[in-house]
C-alpha cells in the first residue's frame, strides 16, 4: 500500500468516549432552531401562496417570439427528445408560414433549442407549472408557445476557436459571429444546378450565379449556387435537400 495503514481514524469510538449527557447537545441544537423559527419565519415557504424567486436564466418550458423566427428548423435538429416539429400556421402578420410546435410533455428542458436558435426566437421561459388534463394540451402550438422575451431568457453560449487559443487570443465570440460559423462547401463537379438549395434556404443566402461555362446541349450558361456567409445561419437545410449530396458543412477550426 502506499503508506502502510497508519492509524488514520480521527475519532474515538463510542466505548472510548467518556460518559457525558450527550442528549443535551441534540436538545440544545433543536431548541435553538425552535426559537429561531418561531421568532423569524421558518425556512419553508407555503408553495401555492408564496413562490420561490427564480433567476432570469431559469429553464422552464421553451417559449418563442414569433416575429423573430425564420423557420430555419435548427431547433428541430438539435432537440435530443425530438419534441419540436415545424407546423404550418396561418397568421395575419406572417401569412402562411411554418413555425415550431413543441411537445412539452416530452421536453426535458435542456435549453438546446434556445442555445442554437440564430435569431434568439426560441427562448427559455421560467414557467414550470405545466400540469394539464390531457397530453394533447401539452402539445404547444406556436401561438400557445409564445412568451414575451426578457434579456435573461435568451441563451447564448460564447465560444472560442482552438486555433485562436493557440494564437493566444482570449476574447470569445457570440452566437452569430462570423468567426465561429460553420460554412457550406460546394462540390462543384457533382452539382447539377437544380437550384433546390436556393428555394429551401430560409434566409435567402444561396444565389444561383453563372459560372461562365456554357452548357453544350442547351447552350445556356451553367449556374452554380454561391453562398453568402454573412446571411447564412448554417441550418444545413440545403445540405439535406441536395439530391446529389454535393453540399457539406466546413467547420471553422
Amino acid at each position, binding site marked *: 500500500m502506499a503508506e502502510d495503514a497508519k492509524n488514520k481514524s480521527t475519532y474515538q469510538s463510542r466505548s472510548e468516549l467518556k460518559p457525558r449527557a450527550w442528549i443535551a447537545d441534540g436538545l440544545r441544537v*433543536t431548541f435553538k*432552531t425552535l426559537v*429561531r*423559527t*418561531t421568532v423569524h419565519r421558518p425556512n*419553508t415557504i*407555503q408553495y401555492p401562496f408564496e413562490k420561490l424567486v427564480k433567476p432570469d436564466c431559469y429553464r422552464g418550458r421553451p417559449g418563442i417570439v414569433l416575429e423573430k423566427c425564420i423557420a430555419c428548423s435548427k431547433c428541430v435538429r438539435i432537440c435530443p427528445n425530438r419534441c419540436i416539429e415545424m407546423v404550418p400556421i396561418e397568421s395575419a402578420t406572417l401569412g402562411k408560414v411554418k413555425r415550431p410546435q413543441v411537445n412539452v410533455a416530452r421536453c426535458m428542458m435542456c435549453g438546446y433549442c434556445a442555445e442554437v436558435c440564430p435569431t434568439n426566437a426560441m427562448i427559455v421561459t421560467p414557467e414550470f407549472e405545466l400540469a394539464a388534463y390531457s397530453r394533447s394540451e401539452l402539445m404547444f402550438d406556436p401561438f400557445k408557445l409564445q412568451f414575451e422575451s426578457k434579456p435573461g431568457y435568451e441563451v447564448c453560449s460564447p465560444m472560442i476557436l482552438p486555433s485562436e487559443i493557440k494564437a493566444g487570443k482570449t476574447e470569445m465570440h457570440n452566437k452569430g459571429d462570423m468567426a465561429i460559423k460553420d460554412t457550406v462547401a460546394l462540390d462543384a463537379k457533382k452539382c447539377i444546378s437544380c437550384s433546390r438549395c436556393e428555394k429551401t434556404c430560409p434566409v435567402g443566402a444561396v444565389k444561383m450565379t453563372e459560372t461562365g461555362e456554357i452548357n453544350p446541349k442547351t447552350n445556356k450558361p451553367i449556374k452554380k449556387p454561391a453562398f453568402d456567409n454573412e446571411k447564412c445561419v448554417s441550418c444545413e437545410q440545403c445540405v439535406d435537400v441536395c439530391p446529389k449530396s454535393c453540399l457539406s458543412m466546413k467547420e471553422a477550426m
Partner: protein
Amino acid sequence: MMFDYSGLYQFLYSVSSWLLWEVGRILGFIGIDSGNILYPIRQFLVDPQFVYFVALLLTALIYLVAALLFGIQFIWMERKFLGRFMDRRGTSVGFLGFFQNFADAFKVLLKAVITPKDADKRVYQFAIFAILAVSFMLLGLVPWDINWYAVNVPLALLLGLAVFSLAPFALILAGWSSNNKYTLIGGIRGAAQLIAYEVPLLLVVVSVIVMTGTLNFNEMVAWQQGNIILFIPLFIGALTFFIAGVAESERVPFDLPEAEAELVEGWQTEYGSLGWGLVMCADYLRAFIICALFSILFLGGWTGPTFLPGSVWMLAKAALVFFFMIWVRAAMVRIRTDQLLKFCWNRLLPLAVINLAVAVLIKIYAVGGW
C-alpha cells in the same frame, strides 16, 4: 333542584335524575298515571337504580369525548412543535393550524375500511377495541381537580397501571391477525418493549407510594401539597418514569415497533380508515396518560397558584411533560430492539431500584417513618 358541583359524577347524577324526573312528569302529563298499563315503565324510569345507570353512561360519554379531544389536541401540539424544531411550519389549517387535525379526523372517517385478505376478521377488529379500551379506561381514574373525577377509588393507581399494562396483548393480537410478516414482527417487538418497560415504571411508582403512603390520587396530591412535590427528592425516579413512559407510548427513541425504515408501520400497517385513526389517537392518548400520571405523581397535579383553576394547572403540567417528549423526539435517533431491551434491563432498572432506596431512606429519616 340545585345541582351540586362537588364532583363530575355527582353533577352528572343530579343532571340525569332531573332529566328522568322531567320525563316521568311528561309521561304523567299525557295520561300515563297509576291505572294505565304503561305505569310500571314510568316508575322504572324514575327509579334511583336506573338514574345511577344513566349517570354512569353520561360519565363514560363525557370521558370518551374528552379523551378524543385530548388526543387530537396532543397530535396538533406534536405536529406544530415538531415542525418548528425542524425549521418548517407545522399544521396550517385554521387558527394556528388547530383545525388541521379535525380535518384529518374527518378525512380518516371517509376512507374505506379494508380488511386484509384471509386476515382473522374478528380478532382484527377486536384488537382496535382492546387498545382503545385499555387507554380510555385510565382516563376515568385520573382526576383533573380536587373533585373533578369520574370515580374515586382508594386503589386508583394500582387499578390504572394494571389496566395500562394490558396493551401488549392488544399489540400481539393486532400484529398476528393482520396476516402480514412485517406486522407480526412489529407486534412481537412492540409487546416485548412494553412488557420490558413496565418493570422500571412500576418500581418508580412503588417509590412514590412509599413516599406518599397512599394509592389514591387525591391523597397523593394532598401529601405533595403539604410537603414537597416529589420531583425534587425523587429526581432519578422522575427521569426513569419519563424514559419508561416514552417507551410505553412508543415514541421515537424507542419506537421500533412501527419503525418506518424497516417495518413500514409495524403492527398498525394493515389498519384502514377509522381503525387506524382510533389506533393513532390511542397512541397519543397513551402518551397523554403518561404525562398526566407524571404530573400527578411528581409535579403535584392540580396544586398551583390560585389565579388558574386546578384542572388548567393539571393540563398545563401534562402539556409541559409532553413538550419534553416532543423535544426528545426531535433530537434523537431510533435505537434497535435488542439495544432498547438491553438499555432497559441494564440502565433503567438499576436507576429505578436506586430511586426506591432513596425513597425508603428519605421516608425513614426525613419524614419520620410510617
